[in-house]
């Protein structure tokens, strides 16, 4: 579904990504893991067109998207939950969800999707007129997940969704990701939290210093010596 080939990207003169290649097949959960500063956020920003690709190609369902502006990429069916969640703090829960559905023209479809999400997350329905900034961290995470689903995406990219959340909420977020996947949405999960993310992902890629250094099935990676030593402290 997504095919990234030899992708490089820079901030100004500083090159961050070096020849990154990976792919995601339909209905998969793929995880990209790596330490802080490895270039994970840079990678997903480049996929979404928020940062220009310096070299390489990105194909979504066979179509090159590396030169498209962000809003066109979203219209093709990819949405991203950015690092740090990025709610619209001074807007209500309801307005945040409306923004998620900006590309959808059919008003009844928007309403149906919203009601379905409100059923799954009743706390959001209860707080639909509250400003998003007044929600707890966990509620904000649920809000951005719902916001990203409002456009009925085919591929959902999550950049460190567990960052700054209590363990019990992290568990709920990972559960939700699995459920979204079971509903037919392909997932790219970017995480530093390696054990948890490989537990939900089918496959993973390890990014270090802007390069993919390892890839494989989640089970293989969890028993890999480098991963055990560097990331799991075993």
């Amino acid at each position: 579904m997504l095919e990234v080939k030899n992708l490089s990207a820079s901030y100004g003169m500083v090159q961050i990504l070096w020849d990154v290649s990976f792919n995601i097949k339909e209905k998969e959960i793929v995880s990209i893991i790596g330490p802080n500063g490895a270039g994970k956020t840079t990678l997903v920003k480049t996929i979404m067109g928020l940062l220009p690709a310096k070299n390489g190609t990105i194909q979504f369902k066979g179509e090159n998207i590396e030169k498209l502006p962000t809003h066109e990429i979203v219209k093709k069916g990819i949405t991203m939950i950015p690092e740090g969640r990025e709610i619209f703090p001074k807007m209500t829960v309801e307005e945040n969800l409306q923004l998620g559905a900006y590309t959808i023209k059919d008003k009844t479809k928007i309403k149906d999707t919203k009601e379905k999400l409100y059923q799954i997350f009743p706390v959001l329905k209860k707080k639909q007129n509250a400003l998003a900034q007044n929600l707890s961290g966990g509620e904000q995470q649920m809000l951005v997940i719902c916001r990203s689903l409002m456009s009925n995406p085919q591929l959902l990219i999550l950049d460190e969704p567990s960052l700054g959340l209590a363990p019990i909420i992290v568990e709920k977020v990972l559960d939700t990701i699995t459920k979204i996947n079971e509903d037919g949405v392909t997932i790219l999960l970017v995480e530093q939290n390696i054990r948890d993310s490989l537990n939900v992902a089918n496959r993973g890629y390890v990014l270090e210093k802007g390069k993919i250094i390892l890839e494989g099935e989640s089970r293989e990676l969890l028993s890999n010596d480098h991963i055990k030593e560097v990331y799991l402290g075993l």
Partner: protein
Amino acid sequence: MITPSGLAETLLWGVANGCIYILLAAGLSIIFGVMKLVNFAHGQLLMIGAYLAFTASVVLGLNAYLSILVAMGGVALIGLGVERFTFRKVLGTDKLNEIFVSLGLIYIFENAAVLLWGNKSAQIASPLHGLLSLGGISISYDRIAAMGIVIVILLSIIFLMKKTKIGLAMRATSQKSDATQLMGINIEKVYIFTFALGAALAGAAGALYGIIFPFSPALGALPTIKAFAIIILGGLGSIPGAVVGGLLYGIAENTAGYVLGGIWPDAIAFVLLIVVLVIKPTGIFGGKGD
């Protein structure tokens, strides 16, 4: 002589002047809030609006109040061109680039106005005449009309911002521009719409100004400074801030003229600006992006 009824009348006329400044400041504030762009040529858009309304009413014979629509539409179109061909090229680069572009635009607009309309003073002939007197206080019908028009325009803006998709996108952009793009929103469209809207408000302010006061191609400079004083007073990027700031400013200006006289009405903008920057630099409504 300062009398109670004289003072009351001064306040009322101040409110009326304030209404014009509110429109100008609201346009400047919307552009700043959404685009983070500081346009020093905003007052020149007001000046062009005044001349467009002048041409529509004096040359083409349109009712002065209908010519406001011509000014809004014309200045909005100019705004579209200015955004597309000048500011878009430098937006998000160095702030200095944006400042230089807007300084350049000041000269372009002023010289274009001299070329097109000459350098002498003009005024738009109003169909309304005379004063309304109530209990010893009187005010011109033109100023009453101006207040009504500003209220209608402001209510439309509030409706646009709160109830329409483009308004939602503008508010989102003012808060987080990257996240807004991730919603599938074309931020360039939001920018060009925002700039044209801000310009249209300046155009409307210009037409109202031209109905009440005489003007020349040099009109723009002082209103720009007044609009900046108002949005800094009210809080950058806040529309309620522009309203409250504009009213306070109009009253302060008119009262200064009544009590102190001379050049004080114009100097009051600078005095207010400095006082606010010293006491509460974030303005009455602090924050941004609502």
